[in-house]
């Protein structure tokens, strides 16, 4: 069956199916299901992140954010880090910070030099991923990360630890807000990959019991700048 026959069959079925449309439901308020992010978006985001098994740290400025990074790097002792290129990460001086600690920085600049297979081998072994976000959603504790050159999808995915740095202006109250912002840019400007991340990697596949870190990062830290 070719494309035309396939679509013709669907067209006929679509028309015939209109006789079986379900009874119209109740009248729906404009913003049904809108939850919002409460009075303090930063606090809501932090508390939702903690509720889904992440660790949120709220800090006042770039200096405090760097200090929070120091504490996390002391815990995990990473040897290599996959990093985004992002103005917020520049502001807290991530590059210098990694250099000072002797952590190998894998980013767009260094990885571009490698052939695809060598690149894959390097990133698979990275100990930690450091990113910012495109947006964060206070309602659900969600980080939206759009793939762009310099903002690799693997940074938030491959290493066992993911640290994200978020600032207040990136936070939206509700999932509906997030999609209304993205919708305004759509349809031509959708990133090739937009991932909404809400928590460390989880599975309940054995006896419905929660296990973290099965494929993605098992440790998920979010540093939020007020």
């Amino acid at each position: 069956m070719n494309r035309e026959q396939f679509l013709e069959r669907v067209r006929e079925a679509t028309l015939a199916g209109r006789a079986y449309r379900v009874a119209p439901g109740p009248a729906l308020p404009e913003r049904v299901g809108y939850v919002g992010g409460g009075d303090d978006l930063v606090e809501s985001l932090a508390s939702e992140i903690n509720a889904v098994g992440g660790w949120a740290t709220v800090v006042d400025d770039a200096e405090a954010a760097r200090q929070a990074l120091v504490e996390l790097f002391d815990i995990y002792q990473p040897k290599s880090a996959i990093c985004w290129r992002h103005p917020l990460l520049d502001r807290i001086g991530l590059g210098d910070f990694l250099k000072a600690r002797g952590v190998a920085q894998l980013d767009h600049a260094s990885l571009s030099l490698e052939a695809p297979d060598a690149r894959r081998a390097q990133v698979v072994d990275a100990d930690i991923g450091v990113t910012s976000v495109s947006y964060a959603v206070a309602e659900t504790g969600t980080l939206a990360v759009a793939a762009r050159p310099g903002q690799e999808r693997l940074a938030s995915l491959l290493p066992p630890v993911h640290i994200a740095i978020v600032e207040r202006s990136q936070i939206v109250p509700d999932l509906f807000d997030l999609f209304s912002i993205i919708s305004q840019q759509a349809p031509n400007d959708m990133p090739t990959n937009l991932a909404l991340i809400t928590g460390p990697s989880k599975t309940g596949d054995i006896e419905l019991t929660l296990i973290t870190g099965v494929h993605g990062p098992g440790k998920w830290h979010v540093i939020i700048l007020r």
Partner: protein
Amino acid sequence: MTADYSRHEHHEFLQATELAMADVSLQGALSNLGTTLGQRNRVAFEILPESDLLRAKARAIKDAALAELDTHLLTLEASVKRRGGEVHFAADGPDACQIIAGILRQAGARRVVKSKSMTSEEIHLNPALEAEGFEVVETDFGEYIIQVAGQRPSHLVAPAMHLRVGDVAKILSPEAGETLPDDGPVLANFARRRLRDAFATADAGITGANFAIAETGSIVLVENEGNIRLSTSLPRIHIAVVGIEKVIPKLADLPVFLKILARAATGQKISVYTSLITGARSAEELDGPEKFHLVLLDNGRSKILGGPLRESLFCIRCGACLNACPIYRNIGGHAYGGVYAGPIGAVLTPLYDGLAANRHLPHASSLCGACQAACPVKIAIPEMLIQLREQLHHEPGELGRLESLAYRLWARSMRSPRAYGIATWLATRTAGRIWPRRWIAKLPGGLRGWTNTRDFPAPAQKRFRDWWENEGKKEDAQ
């Protein structure tokens, strides 16, 4: 018929049910389903304001989307092409398998990682690809376990939920080449390491999709583990096989579904990872596939779309009806014998796979309505099961001659008050007098099937209309 009902479809339903009921391990695995997933679903919706209206909205979006599905498919196709993707149209399962094998062959691919996809189960993709010499690895933890075990998934979202931790250790130990302990995190860590190798060397990733967005050409994938993100980020080819009913018109429709899907499935507000994938990666990006293929699958969906059970296409595969169903919670998923288990499976399997081959499924329900109450898009599953039962009675050979005669007599006596009067008079004067007690414990001959599992109400000794004439009217007058 053997205990292999966990491996094969189309077995004898009643025998499989008996095996399942006698399987101590399975019963242990099933025992906490209602109090975990089932309970979490209810709590998650309770704390969401206006959740009932949100479900109504999701339902309305699905209904409207299907009413214009032909247009949305054209829009989707154009959007995917605009972003450099290729769109393929597969009329049925074999067609889809052939298309996918063709894509892989042409790209010189050999190793495939797969993420969990019920659609790929439906078209039996793995055996088809393996027969063509491709190596296929399931990467969802539960799917990986059952692939190693050679079994079928038993639940829409928790495919290995029929297994205990000890079973999993036994299944994975030969893979590990050592005896793995009965310890969930250790087993998961083994799978993580083993599957990392698969991801690192795979040529192609094959996924399904939870939604496809017509206006942007995006497919949406929802998961908790991260294996879907890996499958769509590391290999150089991404193939998504998607049923045509998964199309929603606009990006703005998506949050409605994201808010209900995870709540219904696991009680989460939103799943850990939601990926919106729009085409292949751009030239400057370092990760992501170089080619994106969307395989749109009909496989009987257009037939359902044009008929009275159209509403079954609203299903978003969350598994809530399975967790709520007293039948599923007793027999598990394998006994249903089809790809889709539970209440929605009892509807979908006969529709996709043929009613005659799955004649027991519409009856595998007490019609209690728990499935419909749990459904995030409020699908009227009990009503559809009744419709399927009715259709079954028109299948040739479905009813014995005697049963057919009995129904005809019953139908005739119900059609006229006079015939009904005579029939009930006869029943009270004969059977009503023979069985003075109110319940019959054992019916004779071919009717014994009924009383094997429950009593049959005996006809009364006096008809209601006689009682009404003599006494009821007097009471009524008082």
